[in-house]
């Protein structure tokens, strides 16, 4: 009986449970602080979504668990960092347009550069190990070592400070609730990216083929579609999303460092396990859960923040081992 309910209403139950869970901190947090924390959590969740979605799509279509995803994220952050440094007068200018301009340029260049890196990675390394999970993890882990070391070679091994564009700094005070400006930008970026991905997957032919491929690669091939080209393309898109996440996250956390990828890769893993590997919507929901709970817990019990995600992941694994959403959604 319980199983039937779970199967039929599992998704709805999970959502209801999640909502209840997110109102629960209200017991321990004053209302206005709660709102501020919620915005911070949503912003963080959206940024994490950018990392996790690429990982999830790549797994869904190609059945490849890309351990190098975190280092692609770090590469994106460093390319963005370089663009910021080259255009520092735009970053420091007291002009929304110039600030947005440099931010957009940094994102575009980082996405293109890392997408190219992703294509090389897929063509040279990942392609050799399709169908073998163990070797995929090993080889992409090896790629991580190399990519992170290359960051040290090009940019040096130390932490670098990322400058926040001038008009992105500071807060808005909306009826006594402190709203960090950049966090709002992050939320907008996340929603935008999610909508675009969903639109492409739902409405375009290539998106439909990708969804078909997630279900049955062999059949998509037998219908005359070059699955390897599709793999490369999806890998490049996933890498690009990681880069976008890297740029946005480095501005958020005010720094870049060579090993930054591993921290966020870990978040991404937890998110895709919660949301369901291969599902974009699952990545979004998982990322928001992680982002919000991280911020609430960090306020209530600071030392337990990092652990709360792992606990949520374990609970999800116990209740619904395949994650909240089935792959391909």
């Amino acid at each position: 009986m319980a199983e039937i309910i779970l199967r039929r209403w599992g998704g709805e139950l999970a959502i209801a449970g999640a909502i209840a869970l997110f109102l629960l901190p209200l017991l321990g947090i004053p209302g206005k602080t709660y709102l501020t924390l919620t915005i911070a959590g949503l912003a963080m969740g959206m940024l994490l979504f950018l990392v996790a979605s690429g990982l999830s799509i790549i797994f869904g279509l190609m059945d490849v668990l890309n351990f190098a995803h975190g280092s692609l994220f770090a590469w994106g952050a460093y390319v963005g960092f370089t663009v910021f440094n080259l255009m520092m007068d735009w970053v420091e200018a007291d002009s929304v347009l110039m600030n947005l301009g440099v931010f957009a340029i940094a994102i575009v260049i980082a996405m293109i550069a890392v997408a190219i890196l992703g294509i090389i990675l897929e063509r040279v390394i990942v392609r050799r190990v399709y169908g073998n999970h163990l070797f995929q993890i090993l080889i992409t882990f090896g790629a991580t070592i190399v990519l992170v070391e290359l960051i040290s070679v090009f940019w040096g091994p130390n932490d670098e400070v990322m400058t926040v564009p001038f008009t992105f700094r500071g807060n808005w005070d909306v009826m006594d609730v402190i709203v960090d400006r950049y966090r709002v930008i992050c939320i907008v970026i996340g929603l935008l990216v999610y909508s675009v991905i969903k639109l492409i997957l739902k409405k375009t032919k290539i998106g439909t083929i990708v969804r078909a491929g997630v279900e049955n690669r062999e059949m998509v091939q037998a219908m005359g579609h070059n699955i390897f080209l599709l793999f490369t393309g999806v890998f490049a898109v996933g890498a690009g999303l990681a880069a976008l996440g890297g740029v946005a996250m480095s501005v958020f956390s005010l720094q870049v460092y060579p090993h930054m990828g591993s921290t966020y890769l870990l978040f991404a893993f937890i998110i895709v396990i919660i949301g369901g590997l291969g599902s974009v919507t699952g990545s979004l929901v998982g990322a928001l859960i992680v982002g919000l709970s991280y911020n609430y817990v960090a306020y209530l019990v600071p030392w337990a923040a990092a652990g709360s995600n792992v606990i949520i992941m374990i609970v999800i694994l116990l209740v619904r081992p395949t994650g909240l959403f089935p792959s391909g959604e």
Partner: protein
Amino acid sequence: MAEKTPVQLFHLEDKRKRYRRSDFYLRIGVLGLLFLIPFLFPSYKTVDLAMKIVIYAVLVASFDIMLGYTGILSFGHGMFFGIGAYSVAFLIGKYGDPSYFNLMLGMAIALLAAAALAVIISFLSLRVKAIFFAMITLAIAELAIVLATKLSGFTGGEDGISLSMPGIFAVSFSAGEFLGIEITGRVFTYYLILLSCLGLFIVMLRFTHSPLGRVLQAIRDNEQRAEALGYKTFIFQGISITFGCVMAALVGGLYAMWVGYVNPESCLGVFEIMLAVLLMCIIGGMGTLYGGIVGAAFYLITETFLPDLQHLARDFFPNALFLHNVLERWSLVLGVLFILIVIFFPKGVIGSVRDYLARGSR
């Protein structure tokens, strides 16, 4: 005479060859060298290096039980290593006096704690898919580091815990001179750990050659087929994981005894320990057990002598820029080496050499 089954013939062949193969003498030679190290090269640096090679070789072997023999990649191996190290450190460092009993108790706690945690993690992740194991262990290992760092009242936090060995293993103990070398507690500790590691290694060898080990290899090679043959792959994988993790914890305990100090970074660190273990395992050869020795020796020797090598290169080959770059960027070289080995020599040094010899003798 009754016809022998292929398996029996294989075993006979194996036995017949055992004492004739050159690698048998190689093994005896390596073991002998390790036993003589404190007398041949009594400097702190060499003894420490030899001990760490031994410890890491066994750690890598325990990792190989899971990776090479079961096809399961764990990023939590460092955590189990750390659990063992911390158990010993708690018992003879932070919460107890150095006594033989507490030392044994520490090892026993390491064993039990590791077994319990390994069973829980296997249950959590194997229900889904074996690849989840890599992700979940990574997440849980990170959690372990955070806990060890943040719960500083209990674990000593980032400062770590210092410990001293009991009785004849204490650093201050001295049993006089023998062959011109002072026999200190360190020397006794060296032999204690060497013998323990040898014991663990033999247990692991027996494990992989047992019927159970063969089932695990069958699962690794073809999970569906093994399942179809009626093996509950889930349970066998769980057994292998638990065994490998318990071994890692015991090695961790031995490591703590040797270095006399544990902290989150050196005992639990995902990237510090896992990177080294993975590299050693891949370089030496997955699924060989002995690969750990080669991998650990290569990795630790180059790591220890890298600064010397860099100096040597600069002094003797001032114009060999490529050589300088290689040595300057050693981690990068290791990363590239790692990828190349996975692609071209997935069996590592030991496996490739074995293949080569097998081809030669045919």
